């Protein structure tokens, strides 16, 4: 998963869930029943992202959780995973949050600093429908709650048919102007592996991949640090294709035809995913049962389906309910597609080569 530093740094700080309560009314798919109101009056403190994914989590997870249980969710939203790590580290043994949703890298950092509690999987019933590889991350300290899925982005105006292979990036006629992910993002690491495989190598023999990437240099307009800028470049006809990049970065622009923005997961090589985790800090301020209930709620098949439809992220729950309408969309991933095509990268391995690969990638594309 990327650090998506820039996109998530929209500088909207603490926003109460109340602000999206109105939106929640239009999603009355979770029926509140009197019996579930056992957490009435209790408060859960949540730290999530400030971008569209974070907003969607407030709409689809937090608001419905409040409706179902009567608990109050106070959400704090911040720009990037590294900021979340910094916030929690600054809190020391008196953390301000009960639940944090963040990328695997951050969870690993917090876990190795000894700041996280290992959740008891038995207290999360919905986990039984989650395939094993998505259940936990960060050495069991995090519970998977959605998959950050990277696609190939293309211009629906200049690229007539959705590309079915990453090799399309090297097709000068199909896509004269392309963009790639910035070197510090995990997407760049995945791209290096893809290039290596296309050139006959693999993750442990990436040199051919770097050679292949060098051929792209002259056609690379930008290494897209800022999703809004990327969308703008597509809108103005300056880009034809690019990736790896998650459509979750710009769900609004993808829905807006004036951008001519398309995204596809249909590559025959599969698509790369990064598991987003919910973690529980040690010495949380709030109720433990409530925290478990919240994590369980985030894995509810209905909630998972809504999240996937809303912001084009992959559901981890294999029984996630995706509407028939949504199934027609090329951007909305179904549990079936995920089980067939999703590739999870090896975080532990990447950590050992990350530094070197960033350098090579930076050098190759330096203007």
């Amino acid at each position, binding site marked *: 998963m990327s650090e998506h530093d820039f996109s998530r740094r929209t500088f909207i700080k603490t926003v109460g869930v109340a602000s999206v309560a109105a939106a929640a009314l239009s999603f009355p798919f979770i029926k509140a029943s009197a019996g579930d109101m056992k957490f009435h009056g209790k408060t859960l403190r949540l730290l999530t992202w400030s971008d569209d994914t974070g907003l969607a989590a407030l709409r689809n997870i937090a608001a419905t959780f409040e409706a179902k249980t009567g608990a109050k969710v106070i959400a704090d939203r911040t720009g990037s995973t590294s900021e979340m790590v910094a916030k929690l580290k600054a809190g020391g043994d008196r953390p301000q949050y009960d639940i944090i949703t963040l990328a695997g*890298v951050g969870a690993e950092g917090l876990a190795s600093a000894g700041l996280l509690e290992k959740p008891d999987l038995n207290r999360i019933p919905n986990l039984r429908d989650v395939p094993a590889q998505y259940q936990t991350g960060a050495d069991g300290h995090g519970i998977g709650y959605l998959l950050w899925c990277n696609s190939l982005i293309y211009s629906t105006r200049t690229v007539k048919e959705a590309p079915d292979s990453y090799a399309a990036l090297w097709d000068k006629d199909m896509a004269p102007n392309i963009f790639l992910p910035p070197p510090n993002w995990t997407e760049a690491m995945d791209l290096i592996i893809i290039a290596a495989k296309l050139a006959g190598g693999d993750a442990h023999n990436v040199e051919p991949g770097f050679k292949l990437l060098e051929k792209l240099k002259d056609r690379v*307009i930008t*290494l897209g*640090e800022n999703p809004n800028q990327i969308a*703008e470049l597509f809108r*103005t006809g*300056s880009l034809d294709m690019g990736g790896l990049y998650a459509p979750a970065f710009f769900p609004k622009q993808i829905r807006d035809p004036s951008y001519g923005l398309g995204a596809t997961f249909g590559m025959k090589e599969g698509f790369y995913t990064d598991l987003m985790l919910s973690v529980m800090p040690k010495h949380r301020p709030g109720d433990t049962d409530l925290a478990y209930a919240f994590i369980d709620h985030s894995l509810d098949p209905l909630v998972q389906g809504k999240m996937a439809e809303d912001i084009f992220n992959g559901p981890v729950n294999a029984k996630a309910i995706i509407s028939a309408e949504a199934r027609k969309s090329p951007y909305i991933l179904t549990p079936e597609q995920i089980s067939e095509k999703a590739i999870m990268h090896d975080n532990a391995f990447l950590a050992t080569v*990350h530094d070197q690969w960033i350098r090579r990638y930076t050098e190759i594309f*330096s*203007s």
Partner: protein
Amino acid sequence: MALSTLTRQVGVAPLRPAKTFSPTARAWLFLSPAMLFLGVLIAASLLVLRMSVGTKGAEWSGFSLASYAQLLEPYYLKSLLLTLRLALVSALIAVLLAIPVGYCMSRLQSPLLRRVFLAAVLLPLLVNLLLQSYGWLVILGPGGMVNQALMGLGLIDRPVMLLYNQTGVLMGLVQTAFPLAVLPIASAMRGVSRSYEEAAATLGASRAQVFRQVVLPMSLPGIITGATLVFAYNASSFVVLLLLGGRRVPMLAVMVHDQIAPLMNWPAASAAGVVLIVTTLAIMTFSEFVTGRRRRILEASQ
């Protein structure tokens, strides 16, 4: 004597209870908020210095110069040189552009016009950098106005890349730091009274000669200050690189950022930061050394 009686009576007016603070102590007391603030800033820098000789995962307890040794690799040296070069070139361009603007501002008579000018110069500071970068995109982007005009005129058939490379970064650096160059220059030029220009004119100097031989040398301290500010500001520039460099211009600030996220290598990031600070300080000291004598002479006479 009647007079002394008078003065004594005034003196007899009840004194406030004698304070035990000496004037020196009071002066220090007065300075203490500033000192406290500076102290925090310096402490933060010292913490960075400490981390730079730590090791990854043991930033506070370990000791190693490996982070500095790593900076000697061509990858980082090239980045440092690129950083200094872009900062220097942007400072030169910004100052060259700021000199006529600053002169104009310093010679405007109407207070209204002066305020309008000032607002125009300060605009880059007031408008969010993200918005500014969209402005650049609209003008210079591959599908922007300049490229469309050039293509419309048949001068080019493919868009010229004006952004997402060093040219784009340079333009962004000049634009964002422009007020830092204009303000000290305009203020220095306002200090050059008109009578110097008139004196030179009556002695036989044409307008160009007056400007070159009197106004410029006399406002040199302001010009150097402007250049130094732009240089220091741009040497550590980060956002411009992301927005207009397309992540393809690896200045040192980006390296520092990469070390922190995603690599979480605080010692390496700190070492790069320390090197950037030290190099910038060294260059600023050098420029002060070179121009200090003249600056002191000018200041003594004004």
